């Protein structure tokens, strides 16, 4: 019995010393798993499927990082992110509005990425310059350009053929557009308008896009507003002319339905041309799969200069919780914007990614429509960020533009008023912030 006791004692001592040894050896302990939260913009659908796949690949590549993902729909991100950013509960990495990155940088809500980019050796010149610019505040990078979009001219090849126009040649200047419209407007034997040459719905030919194609700009080098330039007035006068050429009846009979569904009249064959963003292709695939369409750059005032398009988009931004999580989040961001993954989203969900190398993929090179999209990207501009009033395009410029279109004001007066209102808003902001 005594020897049994001694045996048990020895076993116990051995066990204890093993435990002590193990706990003193950090190398033998289980590797720490870093958990990060990621809010992206795919609540469901193809995008969500691709994202799940991509994240699974990422977690396989980095087994010590666990990503908790959540997909938020367009328009929801703001409502969920703003309170979260204020309360400090925002996720490590999130997808949000590219055009307002500087807003959050200004308020110290997001992380500065310069150090991380340098250490990782990320080449920011491989992303559309306009998108990198918009993510920069005070000379430093605060967001990764993730996805953007661009607008191009869509035209109906069948309509062109029927009107005796070359279906492979799209109008290059706005004057040409007027000529085309005249040929493409169709009124049937009952006097009913059944087809118009151009869709003049305001969210398609947005005021700012039109202005850019006439050489107008809205902010000068010192960030003062310049809404009332002669070029802008010229653009406005042109749109009035175009609306008349298309005909007032168009709105009454053909465009109303488009307004209700938010789907361009181009889709049901009532308009022969429209300006739409690259994602319009998937709308066409759903609602008009048989439509034979072509794409081209948006026309300009003289067909040669002032090539322009408008883009918005998504950025990847980061909040700092601790060093390990920040690093893990950055790795994810780098992965998501890498050429390999960007190409996946481009091909799988027709996303207009910011990574320019993704467009070198053979499948993209072979697609004539994507060729035009890629070219348009070179001229695509993003709204100037105005800290005094971030919503200036819709709240200041658009209402006056609409006033002129409706004939309530002359184009000159309308733009003067827009300029005046913009200055008032800036003045009020300065008053409120003691500047």
């Amino acid at each position, binding site marked *: 019995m005594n020897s049994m006791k001694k045996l048990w004692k020895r076993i116990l001592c051995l066990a204890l010393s093993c435990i002590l040894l193990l706990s003193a050896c950090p190398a033998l302990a289980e590797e720490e798993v870093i958990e990060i*939260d990621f809010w992206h913009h795919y609540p469901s659908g193809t995008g969500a499927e691709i994202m799940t796949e991509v994240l699974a690949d990422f977690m396989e590549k980095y087994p010590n990082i666990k990503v908790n993902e959540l997909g938020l729909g367009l328009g929801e991100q703001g409502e969920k992110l703003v309170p979260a950013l*204020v309360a*400090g509960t925002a996720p490590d990495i999130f997808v949000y509005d590219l055009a307002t990155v500087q807003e959050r940088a200004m308020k110290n809500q997001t992380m500065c990425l310069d150090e991380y980019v340098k250490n990782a050796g990320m080449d920011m010149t491989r992303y559309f310059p306009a998108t990198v610019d918009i993510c920069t505040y005070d000379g430093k990078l605060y967001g990764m350009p993730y996805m953007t979009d661009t607008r191009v001219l869509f035209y109906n090849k069948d309509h062109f053929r029927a009107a005796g126009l070359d279906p492979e040649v799209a109008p290059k200047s706005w004057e040409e557009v007027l000529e085309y419209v005249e040929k493409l407007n169709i009124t049937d034997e009952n006097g009913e308008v059944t087809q118009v040459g151009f869709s003049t719905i305001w969210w398609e030919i947005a005021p700012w896009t039109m202005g850019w194609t006439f050489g107008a700009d809205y902010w000068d080098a010192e960030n003062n507003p310049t809404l009332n330039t002669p070029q802008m007035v010229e653009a406005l006068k042109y749109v009035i002319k175009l609306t008349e050429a298309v005909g007032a009846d168009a709105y009454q009979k053909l465009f109303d339905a488009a307004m209700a569904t938010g789907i361009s009249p181009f889709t049901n064959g009532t308009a022969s041309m429209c300006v739409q963003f690259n994602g319009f292709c998937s709308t066409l695939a759903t609602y008009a799969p048989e439509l034979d369409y072509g794409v081209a750059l948006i026309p300009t005032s003289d067909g040669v200069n002032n090539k322009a398009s408008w883009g918005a988009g998504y950025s990847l931004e980061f909040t700092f919780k601790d060093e390990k999580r920040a690093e893990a989040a950055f790795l994810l961001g780098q992965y998501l914007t890498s050429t390999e993954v960007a190409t996946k989203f481009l091909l799988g969900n027709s996303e207009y990614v910011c990574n320019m190398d993704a467009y070198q993929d053979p499948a993209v090179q072979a697609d004539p429509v994507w060729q035009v999209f890629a070219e348009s990207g070179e001229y695509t501009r993003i709204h100037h960020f105005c800290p005094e009033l971030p919503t200036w395009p819709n709240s200041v410029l658009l209402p006056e533009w609409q006033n002129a279109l409706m004939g309530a004001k002359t184009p000159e007066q309308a733009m003067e008023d827009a300029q005046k209102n913009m200055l008032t808003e800036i003045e009020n902001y300065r008053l409120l912030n003691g500047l």
Partner: protein
Amino acid sequence: MAQESTLRKTRNFIGKTLIVVILLAGAVIFLFPFLWMLSTSLKTPQEIIAIPTVWIPKKLQWQNYSVALSYFPFLRYLANTLYLVMMNMLGTVLSSALVGYAFARLRWPGREFWFKILLATMMLPATVTMVPQFILFKNFGWLDSYLPLIVPAFAGSATNIFLLRQFFRTIPNSLSECARLDGCGELRIFWKIILPLCKPALATVAIFTFMFTWNDFMGPLLYINDKMRYTLSYGLRTFQIQSDSKWHLTMAASVVVALPSLALFFSFQRYFIEGITLTGLKE
């Protein structure tokens, strides 16, 4: 005498018929939105944007429903929503009745002052209290849970308290006085005497609470971070703001989400059938 009552009977009959005719005509107008939703949900995408307008789809696209419901975990969200709705209905009806009773049938110092405060709380737009409230719940540690969506229901909702106050005040004081003199406790008076007389009002509060919670997406959006715990109203939103809005699917999902509300409304109608006759009232 007989002639008079026949005249009255005829007058009543004509009156009733007239009313029914008017109501039926109005019903067409009120039915229209739902019929439109139904019709769009059964169309093909091309039929939706076609000019001239397609009223009745050529072939009913029932598969739109199964496709739409596959976009989000429908049964899961249904279960979550039902849970939230039940809790809210319970909490709101109970607490609003209690508090409404206090404002209507009990006298206590400061009652009118607090009533004005009650009204005032309805007048501040939620936009400006949203973020501080979020921070409040964060400090409670209630983020990413259902707590912010359930617990406040048990504190009563201002509109429902006001509504029940109005209804409780229409019941004669004498009823309560008699019961009190008989030695009835206040809670007993509340539960056994007043509440049963206000069934239509309580049913109204229940319906309103159901509707509000069923359709509330703001609450779940703000306070839940786990997509498996979202609600139907949230699932519906995933359709509504996509860049290529698939209207046929959106409408199909909307129809499905609307049906339970209708079912509830219809079944709660039984509380609106009988009027009160107040017999047994000791005058």
